[in-house]
C-alpha cells in the first residue's frame, strides 16, 4: 500500500484507481490479442465499499466481473494478469482465465461464470461456516448482477438463506445491463431489492458509485448479519461503463444514459470529495497515479514473462 495514504478513505480511492488501471491495461492487452474480459470499470465503489466492510474470516463469491472484488480483497495484479493471459503464475495456473478466478487464500472462493451460480453456492459456504468449518463468526458476501437476479436461483437462494438463517450478504450490483440487454427490457420494476423484501429479508438500495455510502451501509449490514446470523440484501445502483466484454463499442447503449453515469464516476466522485475535504491534494494524487501506473506496468511485465502451462499437465486437477 502506498506510503502517501494517510486517511483511510484515501486507501479506498487508491484501490479504485488500481482496479481501474488494471482493467484499462487488460483492455489494451485485449486489443493486442489477449483474451477479452468483463471489466468492472464504473463499479469499483461497490467492491471497495462492501469488501472494506468485511473481515478476513468472511468469504466472498464473485462472478465473471470479478477484478474489482479480487483487487479490493488484496489480490495481486501480477497474478491476476497472468491468469487472464492463461499463464502458470495466475491464481488458477491459467486454467480459469478471466472468467472464473478463485483465490481461496484470500477467501474469494468458487467463482463461477454461470450467471446466478454464485447464488446457488453461497448457502453452502455459509452453512459450513455455521456448522463449524473455518473461523468462527464469518459471513459470506455474494456478488451478482441485475441479470443474475432474474435467474430462478435467486428465489431459491433467498428462501433457503432465510429459512436456514444463513449469514449471507447478498450484493446485487445493478449496473443496468445484462450483456447486451438493458435491464428495463427484462424486469418490469424499478427495483430489485423488492424481490428480497418479498422474501422477508431486510434489503436496502444505495448509490453504488459512492464508496462512502456503500461502505456505510455495508458496515451496518455486516454488523447486523454478524449479530443475528440472518441474511440481508443490498442493491447497489451503478453502471457498466465499458460495455459487456472487451472489446465492446457500446453502439447499442443510450449515450445520454451513459453520459449521466460517466459524470457520476465513482473514482472522480471520491477524488473530488477527498480534495474538497482537504484529505487529498494534487501532488499526492499525482504520486498515487504514478505508483498505480508502475504497479500495473510491473504486473504486465510479470504476466507476459510468465510461462505457459505444460500441456503434459492438461489432466491435473480434474479429480482430487
Amino acid at each position, binding site marked *: 500500500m502506498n506510503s502517501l495514504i494517510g486517511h483511510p478513505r484515501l486507501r479506498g480511492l487508491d484501490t479504485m484507481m488500481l482496479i481501474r488501471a488494471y482493467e484499462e491495461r487488460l483492455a489494451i492487452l485485449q486489443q493486442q490479442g489477449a483474451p477479452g474480459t468483463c471489466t468492472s470499470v464504473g463499479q469499483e465503489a461497490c467492491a471497495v465499499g462492501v469488501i472494506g466492510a468485511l473481515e478476513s474470516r468472511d*468469504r466472498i463469491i464473485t462472478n465473471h466481473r470479478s477484478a474489482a472484488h479480487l483487487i479490493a480483497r488484496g489480490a495481486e495484479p501480477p497474478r491476476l494478469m497472468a491468469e487472464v493471459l492463461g499463464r502458470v503464475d*495466475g*491464481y*488458477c*495456473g*491459467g*486454467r*480459469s482465465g478471466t472468467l*472464473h478466478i*478463485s*483465490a*481461496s487464500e484470500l477467501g474469494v*472462493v*468458487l*467463482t*463461477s461464470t*454461470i450467471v446466478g*451460480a454464485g*447464488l*446457488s*453456492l*453461497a*448457502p*453452502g*459456504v*455459509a*452453512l*459450513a*461456516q455455521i*456448522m463449524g*468449518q*473455518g473461523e468462527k463468526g464469518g459471513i459470506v458476501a455474494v456478488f451478482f448482477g441485475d441479470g443474475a437476479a432474474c435467474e*430462478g*436461483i435467486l428465489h*431459491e*437462494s433467498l*428462501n*433457503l438463506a432465510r*429459512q*436456514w438463517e444463513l449469514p449471507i450478504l447478498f450484493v446485487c450490483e445493478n449496473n443496468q445491463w445484462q450483456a447486451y440487454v438493458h435491464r428495463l427490457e427484462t424486469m418490469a420494476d424499478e427495483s430489485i431489492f423488492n424481490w428480497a423484501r418479498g422474501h422477508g429479508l431486510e434489503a436496502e438500495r444505495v448509490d453504488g458509485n459512492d464508496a462512502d455510502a456503500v461502505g456505510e451501509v455495508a458496515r451496518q449490514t455486516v454488523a447486523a448479519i454478524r449479530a443475528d446470523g440472518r441474511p440481508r440484501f443490498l442493491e447497489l445502483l451503478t453502471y457498466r461503463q465499458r460495455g459487456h466484454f472487451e472489446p465492446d463499442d457500446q453502439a447499442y447503449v443510450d449515450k445520454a444514459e451513459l453520459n449521466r453515469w460517466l459524470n457520476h464516476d465513482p473514482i472522480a466522485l471520491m477524488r473530488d470529495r477527498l480534495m474538497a475535504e482537504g484529505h487529498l491534494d494534487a501532488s499526492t494524487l499525482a504520486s498515487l497515479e504514478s505508483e498505480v501506473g508502475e504497479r500495473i506496468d510491473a504486473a504486465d511485465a510479470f504476466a507476459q514473462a510468465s510461462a505457459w502451462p505444460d500441456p503434459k499437465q492438461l489432466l*491435473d*486437477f*480434474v*479429480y*482430487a
Partner: protein
Amino acid sequence: MAFLTIEQAINQALYEEMQRDPRVMMMGEGVAKSRAWLLREFGATRVRNTPLAEAVVAGTAVGAAASGLRPVIDLLFAPFLTYAMDALVNSAGKLRYLSGGQHEFPLVTLCMTGSGWCVGAQHNHNLEAMFVHAPGLKVVMPSTPADFKGLLKSAVRDNNPVLFFTDLALLFEQGEVPESADHLVPLGLADLRREGEDVTLVSYGKTVRVCLEAAEQLSECGISAEVIDLRSLKPLDEATVLKSVRKTGRLVIVHEASGLCGMAAELAALAASKAFDALRAPVVRLTGPDAPAASSWVLEQAAVPNAGDVVSSVETLLANRSQSAS
C-alpha cells in the same frame, strides 16, 4: 454378516459414515422424514429437510463441500437432477479444474430411477450416462446390498463429487452385508459375478440379475457365460472388462438406459478399440429404447431387456461359433 435390504444397507452406510465423521451431513426434500433414524441420531443440524429447490440444494452441497463439510444430498428421482444440472455439471464437475485445484468436492448425490413402479418417464429415466460423459464427476450404480453399502461408504469418503444411482426395483432386495464399519468397496472396481468361457455379459444395476438369470439358462444349453457387474460406471474398471473379453471373445452389454451414447456404447467402443484382436463376434448391446419410459406396466416392462433377450442374443452370437472361431 447381516442380512439386509438395499434400503437398509444404504441407511447403514449413511449412519456409519455420519458416526465416523462429523463433517458428513445430509440434505434433501424429506430426508429428515425418510431417514428419521438419522435425524434422531445426528440431529437437525446434520440431517436437513430442504425446500423443493433442487438447484440450490445441489449448489449448497457444492459450496459446503468446498468449505469443509461432506454433504450427501438426496434428490429423489433421477429426472429431478435436471434442475440441479448447473450445480453438478458446471460447478461440482468443473470448479476444481478451473480453479487450478483450489477446491475439493466431497459430495454425494443420491437418486433413484428404474422401471417397475409405473411412474413414467419423469420419474423413471436412467440418465447416469449423462454424468459419465461430464468431466470431474464419478458415477456409481450398484446392484447388491453389500455393494450398496460398501460403495456408498467409499463415495462419502471420496473427495470428488459422486453420483449414486439406486434402481428402485432393487430397494427391497435382500442380501448378505459385512457388518464391519470398514466394509468398503472401492470406486472403480467391477465385480466378476460369474465366471464363464464363451461370452462376457456386462451390466450394472437391476439388469445384472437379468444377466445372471440368462447365464443360468445358458449353462443349461452348455453355454458358459461370464457376468460382470460394473458397480462403478466412472471410474470404469476397463481392465476387468477387457480381461474377460479377451478370454471369451464375445461381449454382450445389457442395461436399462437408452442405448445412444449410453454405457453400452462406451463398453462396446472399449472392446472394439482395446480388445479388437480378441473379439470373435459382433458386440451386442441390449438396452432400453430411445424412448421415454411409459407408465403402463406392459410398455414399461417391454422396454427393459430381460433374460430371454440375453439368452437369444447369445445363442445367435454362438450359432456361428465354429465359423468365426479363429
